[in-house]
């Protein structure tokens, strides 16, 4: 059972990794808008204008 002395820190490290991933996702704005993406596919797609190419849609 002494393996638990190893497992516990490893588990906590894994959780810390998940938290870090969540922090990254939050900071990069992935949770800013949870509604529009779901209905975006209903909008007609417009071919991007020449100057718009390579620009992110939310910028």
């Amino acid at each position, binding site marked *: 059972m002494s393996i*638990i002395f190893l497992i*516990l820190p490893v588990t*906590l490290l894994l959780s810390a990794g998940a*938290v870090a991933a*969540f*922090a990254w996702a*939050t*900071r990069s704005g992935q*949770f*800013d808008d949870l509604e529009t993406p779901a209905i975006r596919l209903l909008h007609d797609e417009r071919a991007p204008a020449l100057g718009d190419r390579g620009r992110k849609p939310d910028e």
Partner: protein
Amino acid sequence: MAPAVLESRYDLTRSVLQIAWEPSVAPLSEIARALDSLGYTPHPTHATNLAAEQRNGDRALLLRLGIAGAIAGNVMLMALALYSGKYAGMAAEYAALFRWGSLLIATPAVFWTGNVFFRGGLAALRTRTPHMDLPVSLGLLAGYLGSAANTVRGQGEIYFDSLCTLIFLLLVGRYLQRTHQRRSAKASDLLNALSPTIACLVDGEALREVPASSVAKGSLVEIRVGERVAVDGVITGGCSALDTSLLTGESFPVEVSVGDRVHAGTTNLAAPLRIRVESVGAETRLGRLMQSVEATQRERAPIVRLADRVAGYFVLAVLGIAATTLSIWLRLDASHAIDHTVALLVVTCPCALGMATPLAVSAALRAAARRGILFKGGEFIEELARPGTIVFDKTGTLTEGRLALVAWHGDEGAKTLVRAAEATSGHPIARAFQRSIEDSLLICTERQEHPGGIRARVAARDVLVGSRAFVASALGSTPVWAVNRARAEAEAGRTPVLIALDGQVCAIAAFADTIRADATASLAKLVELGFQLEILSGDDQRVVDSVVRQLGVPVPNAMGGASPEDKRAVIAGLRANGQRVFMVGDGVNDAAAMAAANVGIAVHGGAEACLSAADVFTTRPGLETVALAASGSKRTMRVIRIGIGLSLAYNVLGVALAVTGRLDPLWAAVLMPLSSITVVTAALRARTFG
């Protein structure tokens, strides 16, 4: 250098320089370089981006919530091992590992993700206002210190799982609340939205467009037809009709001529005007009005919410019981006295109490939004739930806000001729003719619009449409029947318009602003809910009286002829008398009054400034939504009370267990989420605005 820059203004407080320059003389880069050489390196300004600020706040809270959740989950897993170890037996070294592990990860949860509660608790102490954060931080601190001491000692109870769950659940409530909160209005934004930023300056013979804020006092500006006035001033040339509804709420245009004063925010309807400027920007009447809106909003005492009021008594009660428990157990069994007191403070930590309001409110806000009612914050639901005096604006609120043809006396055949004569005009009377008479194929061959009326030639006949004074001066005289009829209509609160064909008065049309279809039913419902009705209008008293008669609902107080400043004063007076006042309006003239009221409600189609000053606004036309807002708020308040009652019941149970020394961490860990789940279910299942 100098000739390139036409105008410049320097704002010392914000360190902002505004220039208008002539690009053909010198490009902007050259001007910037010149400034730099003087020692003032210019940077382009960005208006403070409130949206970005709000977004960053949202992200920070979400991150906090996520971390609190992850820690709560992990601490709970370790607590599960500890609980099962307690019943099935567990080697001391493993128990120590889990206890130290819990302490390690609970520490950032309590002091980093939970520091919002400590900050709130400290602020509540400093300002001596009751707040929910006070009992929360008390419980958190006692629980953490007691558990940490027991971990170090290697014996006694630890409550890390309960503390972390508590922080997570309370942050969920806070997150929900935040996503519904909106920011309040800024006077400068309001002003920019209302008056144009460009004015047409008369410079010798030429006209030049300049920023409205840079116009000097005493200079001349021209206001073209259809334009909104950007400054306050006196007319030096021309005569026209002004739409002043933005400022006064009066539906009928005002005739103005040389020597009359005009205000920013009004619209020129008939003919170009020249104005000698008296004040610009924030010094105009509109500017001062908007400043008073902002000042009133700032001065408004924050609403103490029910949950916070309860929390005030709650803290006192908990501290009292804790002291009693400590003193009794010190005599009975001193070794367990601290443990039992810590257990009491942890279990009375008002998790469900802290969640009851945010959850019920955010569920209600969502339901209300589906029915077309937007609240700027949950506290206004609590305010609206208790009846008081509800004051209505007339034009655009109780009425449709536009003139309609309500009576026609005389020759019916003249209707089509009038319609053709008025076909292209933008005057409110002309618009009403266009809406209420069907278009014919008659063609108007000649048209002259004058202040007060119109002269046209349609189907080879002379058509004259206008006010009594206009027609009288054009014809030389008006028949007695027409004068009497016109006077009677004016007495009844309608606007009479005379129609003459080939120099003979042949008909009289009467115009009025009609009442909204759902007004009577909605007002009756509000009376039923216990509200007292009042009307406060900028329109003529006779018009107000006629509206009250048509409503058929008892309105004890209906006041006409009130300027925006009067309205604000009346509302402030009512509040000074200790009444709870709600203001319902749609125009800029109501904005200051709305800000002064307990709750300002803007109805559908209101001006932008009015929306910013309002605490509640409806997105559907009519007054039905106002009645629904009041009744829904009342139902929401009942849900909140039930939630608070439920959580207090759980607390009483916890206190009973803790005082008798029978509360161990397992009980605390079960009671806390159980009470929250009950409260959440009660809040989400309730019908409020639905």
